[in-house]
């Protein structure tokens, strides 16, 4: 059996990797953003939850097909937590897809000040060693 690839989300790591989260990270490594869906009531979650918030049923992963969103809100982090101080300043954005699902991620290619309501596109990124994978917003 092939050894599982070591993957972490984002720019600083949370090393509490569960089988459900690992599976989700492997999709992300293939540039597929997955939401989760409750098998019982149909509720959808992004970011995904293993258990439905409403009835505690197991959720399954389903791909988010939307690629464009609008900027719901943003912050330019000039003074970062210690773990991300080497990256400051960076922009964290909440993007809202037409379906209403939201996603919090960095915007990585801004050349001017962000504005609430501006168009965003979903992108993906990984660290040079391939261990850190993430989604990101692009303008």
């Amino acid at each position: 059996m092939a050894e599982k690839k070591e993957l972490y989300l984002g720019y600083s790591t949370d090393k509490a990797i569960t089988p459900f989260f690992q599976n989700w990270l492997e999709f992300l490594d293939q540039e597929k953003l997955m939401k989760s869906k409750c098998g019982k009531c149909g509720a959808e979650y992004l970011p995904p939850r293993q258990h439905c918030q409403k009835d505690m049923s197991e959720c399954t992963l389903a791909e988010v097909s939307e690629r464009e969103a609008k900027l719901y809100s943003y912050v330019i982090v000039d003074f970062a937590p210690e773990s991300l101080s080497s990256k400051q300043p960076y922009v964290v954005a909440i993007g809202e897809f037409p379906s209403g699902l939201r996603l919090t991620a960095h915007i990585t290619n801004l050349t001017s000040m962000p504005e609430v309501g501006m168009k965003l596109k979903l992108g993906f990124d990984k660290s040079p060693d391939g261990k850190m994978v993430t989604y990101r917003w692009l303008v």
Partner: protein
Amino acid sequence: MVRRVAVVAGGHSKFGKRYDATMRELCAEAYKPIYDEGITQDRIDASVLSYAASQFTGQGAGSALMADYIGLQEKPHLRVESACTTGTASLRAAWGMVAAGLYDVMLVMGVEQMNRVSSATATEYMSRAGDMRWEYPYGISFPAFYALMASRYMSEYNMPHDILAKIAVKSHFYGAQNPKAHLPKEIPFEEANNAIPICRPLNLYDCSLITDGAAAVVIAAEDRVKEFTDRPMWIKGIGAGASENMIQDRPSLTTIPGAKRAAKAAYKMAGIEPKDINMAQVHDCFTIAELIAYEDCGFAEPGKGPEIVENKENYIDGRIPVNCDGGLKSKGHPLGATGVSMTYEIMKQMRGEAEKSSRQIKDVKYGLAHNVGQSGQFVNVFIFERGW
């Protein structure tokens, strides 16, 4: 049968960068004036320690240390934690025990020592109160959560940053008159509006302070109150609320839903309305938080909070004086002490005991404390009534 409960005494340490003390000495400093009033250890049945974040000092099991240091080592004690609302969560826990008849007299001690680590490390620790899987990896610091609210509020209501700067100016105006404040200095509007950015659109003067300090209050059951004071401050209403853990999941970022729920519950229990409140201590961890609090507490309609600022209705002679002790902005924000400090300030204002007449609010019958944890995941609202 629930018993009525009153705040009968309080004490407060100097807030600041207290390299001269550890949390135990800070607790003693807050308890000393209470002891000097004659509320000696033998008159206290039990205590609650409000201590939010042990990672700053590394001290675990803090209530044992605190109780022992101030001579309450033989009395039952416990620690409460719910982020920045730990102070009023502790008061709520103690109120429940006294109201239910478990104890008659309790000490609620709030303390935090945050300056034993660097600002970047403190920011790191506080960012871990966000979702460790989905928010923390993107470096969403505590100021960043509130900056997300500020960006949205400024866009929805077309509000300039000037309004936030005016809140900071007001906080520092009163903080400069409070000898217990961490940063007791006035700041001019231009400086407040153009300070270095921390998490844009929030700048340095939009942010509260990383502070060491302690505050304490004693509460007593109705039939014991007269043994302690003829000026009791009754706990008239208590409301607690909660909000979605991830900030992106909130239906709106221009309000804190848990705060609205907490305020509504507190008003209902107290049987009064927002217009009856004579002063408020609100959780201004950031200037945008104070602005949103005006609306969540019912002092302004949604989107109308800036009018309170523009009209200076939040000053001592205004319609609703807010944070006339400097607030978290200027007085400081030692996490576990903050909610207790709010309670102490309302008691002192009701008693007409502000250190300077220039920050003394006249004729306070009802005071409101609004204490928020994280970015609104926990909220407590207390309404206090003058009892004389």
